[in-house]
């Protein structure tokens, strides 16, 4: 694998995480628990779409075959998407979305802090913009964890259930593939493994402050980074790619 190939792959991973997470968050539109929160969740979705656009655009440049961000977002087959499985988990109820956002944002907070120092200036620039957004996403989901965890018996149960259900998809975030090892060596990417302890510490703090127990199950499901997804992914793509696939000649 060349450095260029590894960087392309690395950017697709980052871009796909943002793309698929934006898709799930945008499903909240007109379905929020209160109008204010409807706007808050779509604001987060907009941050993610913007990030996906930047990362996929750059991926297309790095690949050098003239693929636009839209072509990468809308025309790849399922096994060529490399997001973490946690991103494609269904929207679920509000507790599920909040738990998912906390688990992802905590990882992204650590990841993008590192990527701000990437030797690749474009990536460092994207990370510099992303880190501000991520801090807000993290704060927003942390505060809601407190409210749900310490709110009512029901809200505590639902949040606990969400954390339990998502836990097996969190470990994948810290895996290192060949392209990531190469990116780390080049001081472009980040050592995911090194983030895990800090991640766990931060997540444990928020959850214990929310009266939520850390799951004890140790099984981890992964595969997204290799293009092997859950059954959710095909449905996401069949919606997302519908117009692009049904009218391949059209420009929108």
């Amino acid at each position, binding site marked *: 694998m060349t450095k260029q190939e590894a960087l392309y792959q690395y950017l697709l991973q980052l871009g796909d995480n943002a793309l698929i997470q934006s898709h799930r968050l945008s499903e909240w539109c007109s379905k929020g628990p209160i109008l204010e929160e409807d706007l808050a969740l779509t*604001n987060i979705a907009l941050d993610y779409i913007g990030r996906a656009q930047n990362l996929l655009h750059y991926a297309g440049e790095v690949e050098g075959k003239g693929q636009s961000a839209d072509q990468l977002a809308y025309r790849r087959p399922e096994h060529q998407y490399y997001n973490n499985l946690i991103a494609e988990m269904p929207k679920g109820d509000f507790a599920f979305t909040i738990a998912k956002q906390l688990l992802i944002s905590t990882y992204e907070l650590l990841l993008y802090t590192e990527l701000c120092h990437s030797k690749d200036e474009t990536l460092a620039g994207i990370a510099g913009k992303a880190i501000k957004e991520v801090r807000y996403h993290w704060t927003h989901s942390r505060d809601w964890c407190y409210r749900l965890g310490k709110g009512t018996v029901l809200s505590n149960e639902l949040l606990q259930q969400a954390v339990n259900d998502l836990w097996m998809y969190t470990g994948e975030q810290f895996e290192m593939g060949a392209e990531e090892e190469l990116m780390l060596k080049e001081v472009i990417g980040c050592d995911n493994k090194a983030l895990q302890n800090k991640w766990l510490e931060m997540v444990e703090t928020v959850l214990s402050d929310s009266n939520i127990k850390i799951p004890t199950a140790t099984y981890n499901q992964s595969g997204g980074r290799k293009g092997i997804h859950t059954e959710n992914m095909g449905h996401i793509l069949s919606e997302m790619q519908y117009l692009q696939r049904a009218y391949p000649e059209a420009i929108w």
Partner: protein
Amino acid sequence: MSTDTQLDLWEVFIQSRPGSHYTHAGSVHASDNQMALQNARDIYTRRNEGTSIWVVPAKYVSASNAEDAGMFFDPSNDKMYRHPTFYVMPEGAKQI
């Protein structure tokens, strides 16, 4: 009785530039001050309108009564000596 609620009403004040006054932007619903601040941010600063936000529970805002406008505001009508233009300055004096 249902315990359902649309949460409390808060008034939002936005400072549009550092150093400028905070002006009333509108209201949001929220259960606590952090939520009120975040909601105000998501609703009233989506187009770069703000550099800082205040939120105040609407129940703590007191407003003057329209019927009191006469006694509240009219008495200051005739006190022109509070304005610099009231004073006659000697011809030729500078920087005053």
